């Protein structure tokens, strides 16, 4: 069933991309934009530790690069996978340009926004992920949330698959420690 769904989604993407390439018009682009941007934005938010401004910048650059290269896309992967790869590359360049490791802390505004729709367990989990060092966070988000394999992560992040496994192991441990500390803190405060 999953394969059929993906196949149909791929067919629809091919048609929408074909429409856009044939016309290069605003409406065709908007259709593609609305279909894929919410998922890209969510991924960008997690990769940059819930910095809304940075996530929007990355999504913006992702679309610019995508449209520039769209005519050369050979459909050897899914369109969403291709978009996500561009976004992941862009987020890595984003950090490289700043030349600093960011230990992101979820802003109050993010907590407030998430709290509207999601329960506190999820907020804790998002906070624990966001607080991870950048390298750990990228691997954990890509593997445990987005479902990439270590081989795919290795290609996307230009690291060995073994390094990806090792990073994931450290990331999970750090995430659990963070959640445990949070739980203990909450218990002691009560």
């Amino acid at each position: 069933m999953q394969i059929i769904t993906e196949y149909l989604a791929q067919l629809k993407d091919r048609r929408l991309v074909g429409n856009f390439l044939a016309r290069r018009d605003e409406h065709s682009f908007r259709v593609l934009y609305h279909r894929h941007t919410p998922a890209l934005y969510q991924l960008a938010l997690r990769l940059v530790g819930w910095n809304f401004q940075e996530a929007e910048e990355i999504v913006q650059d992702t679309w610019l690069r995508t449209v520039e290269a769209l005519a050369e896309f050979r459909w050897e992967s899914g369109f969403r996978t291709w978009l996500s790869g561009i976004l992941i590359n862009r987020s890595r360049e984003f950090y490289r340009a700043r030349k600093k490791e960011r230990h992101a802390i979820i802003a109050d505004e993010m907590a407030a926004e998430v709290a509207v729709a999601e329960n506190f367990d999820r907020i804790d989990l998002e906070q624990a992920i966001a607080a991870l060092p950048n390298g750990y966070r990228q691997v954990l988000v890509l593997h445990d949330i987005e479902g990439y394999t270590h081989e795919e992560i290795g290609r996307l992040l230009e690291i060995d698959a073994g390094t990806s496994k090792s990073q994931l192991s450290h990331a999970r441990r750090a995430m659990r420690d963070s959640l445990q500390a949070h739980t203990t803190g909450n218990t002691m405060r009560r």
Partner: protein
Amino acid sequence: MNLNKNDNGLSSEEREKFAGLSRQRQPSPALETRIISLLKSKGLILMTPSQRFFTAPRLAGAFAVIALVTFGFSLGKWQSPASQPDPGLETFIMLLHESGSVDEHEADKVIEYGKWAQTIAQTNRLRAGAKLRYDGQLLRRIDEQLEARPFAPREDSNHLGGYFLIQARDYDEAVKIASSCPHLKYGGMVELRQIDKT
């Protein structure tokens, strides 16, 4: 959450929690506008002829033209008795076909169309008129499935740019009115069709 400290794989509860995280989130609406604007500035999204027309430095002039035309139509519509259909007359539609190319006299053309419409309205022959947007949707039903796909005219093809609804005694008078429309002078084509009352 059940923490699984000894085994570094994910516990079933952890998997469930990860699966429950949202996969989509809407960015601010301004992002879409910004991206489209950037793509247009790089020539990666083509502007329609109307969009190109309404870019600086023509924008100020275009607003003045719109005001004039609107005034022209309003004058005809509200001051002319022809705003009420005359049952003794036949109704015709003038479909204005045009190519997508935009020339430097476009602003003058729009003013002229407005003046012409005002003149026709003063003779109680104009019922309505409008310029059409360039974008739209094409709808059809294939194998009982409704297909709606975006439509944007190619620059090198003829397409419907607007219409006038007029009244006349017969085709001869309708042709006479339509032939005075400045659209013909500028190389456009007018398709004149009578409204079927049956």
